[in-house]
């Protein structure tokens, strides 16, 4: 195990934050944290790497980490090439050539000033720096946000390669399809509370979509309405006798984000 988080709570004065979060990351595993904006994903990551101090709970990180923040801020006065040198000076175990390779593959000009890069290019530069650091755990906050489809596909491939060296990834996203293709396990946060965790296929097994006659009420989340029927997402337990069909992962996550399901 590379990371163990137990009963993590971090509540801000405004009342937002996270409460009693429990999860772990195994060696060679990709764990994704899913959740809408304000769910507490970034707070959780910042507590893990020490930028925020938890109110309670324990965090045990066994090894080195490399971090990609949600806001991709680098030194605007530097060129891309200078930024790589700064990163090399500041980072232990930094693979300069790997960073250059990623930048080359993503077609980021080395002589360009950081201030002139687009949001996507800046994310690519920060990702190249983060992935070039030799770490046991890669903590990535929204790694593909703002990337064009080709760059996103390239970066997701790079992330999927990380576990091949027995290294782990903990990353946040709110793009369900992307997480489904990339992560081994997920945890789902809503309003600072962990509402579901596990292997994606296991989560899919726990929920089903049930079609009922229009207007018929049942305990679950009303996912879709048509002229003749309503579709509910419900927990499989306790609905064994009902006529149900499998729910996709994105349906389950949407149901969790929008309302209570059970």
């Amino acid at each position, binding site marked *: 195990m590379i990371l163990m988080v137990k009963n993590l709570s971090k509540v801000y004065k405004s009342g937002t934050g996270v409460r009693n979060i429990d999860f772990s990351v195994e060696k060679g595993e990709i764990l994704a944290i899913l959740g809408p904006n304000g769910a507490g994903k970034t707070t959780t990551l910042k507590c893990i790497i020490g*930028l925020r*101090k938890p109110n309670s709970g324990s965090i045990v990180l066994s090894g080195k980490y490399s971090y990609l*923040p949600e806001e991709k*801020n680098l030194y605007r006065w530097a060129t891309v090439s200078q930024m790589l040198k700064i*990163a090399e000076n500041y980072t232990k175990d930094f693979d300069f050539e790997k960073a250059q390779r990623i930048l080359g593959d993503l077609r980021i000009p080395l002589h360009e000033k950081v201030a002139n890069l687009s949001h996507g290019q800046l994310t690519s530069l920060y990702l190249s720096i983060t992935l070039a650091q030799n770490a046991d755990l890669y903590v990535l906050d929204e790694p593909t946000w703002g990337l064009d489809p080709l760059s996103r596909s390239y970066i997701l491939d790079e992330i999927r390669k990380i576990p091949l060296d027995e290294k782990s990834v903990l990353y946040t996203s709110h793009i369900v399809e992307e997480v489904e293709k990339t992560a081994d396990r997920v945890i789902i946060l809503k309003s600072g509370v962990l509402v579901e965790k596990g292997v994606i296929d296991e989560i899919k097994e726990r929920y089903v979509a049930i079609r009922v006659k229009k207007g018929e009420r049942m305990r679950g989340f009303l996912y879709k309405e048509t002229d003749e029927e309503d579709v509910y997402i419900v927990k499989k337990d306790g609905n064994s006798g009902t006529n149900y069909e499998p729910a996709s992962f994105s349906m389950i996550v949407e149901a969790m984000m929008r309302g209570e399901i059970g």
Partner: protein
Amino acid sequence: MRKEFLDMKVRFLMTLIVMIAIFLSLMPLKNWVVELLEKNESVINRYVGSNFVKELKDWSFYIYSQWFGKNFGQLVPIIGIIFAFPLFSREVENGTIEFLLTRNTRGKVFLSKLIVSSSLLIGTILLLCILPMIYTFVMSIRFNPKYVPILTLHVLVGAVLWYSITLFFSVAFSDQVKSILSSFAVLAITTVIGIVKYTKFMNTYSYIMGIKNAHALGISYLMASLFLVYSSWVIFKRREF
């Protein structure tokens, strides 16, 4: 540390260029200033003293009064403030503090910023203190450097004190404007309070531009600087980003 130097390069060079320009514009003005004052000698004698114009003809007196006692001396606190105000507040404001803190320990980040900026500050101040000696040597002007060591000490202590005050604000605040405005506010308030006899020690200008032996005050300022640097470190160590 290379990054810290690159970060400070513009401020360091601009400060140096401006101060050298002020010095070089001040020196050739000596004869013109003396002539101007001589034309108004009666007024000058009444308000400044009868010997002032006469003494001003002497290069040593001119340099001590117009460089150390006026132009450079007055700018020393401002130089200290300029070197310190963005050190941490700019990193927080621009969001780059996360880049630093996730690659190095807080101690290393704090120390590297402190070492580079304070070394450049001390280097700049020392250079500006010996500038009159270099100038007078090159121009073959007679200059008595008797008061240079004591003035250098005072100027250094003053610069370090204002650097430390601003460092504290730079760590405490998340934007550069707050840190620089707070420092200038403290400078203005302490200078005004220092007019009163019993709180004279608050006016750092009288120490920075003075040649009286004021070791107790100097040591107090240094102790205050050390306390402020340590407090800045404690805040930085505990602060959330």
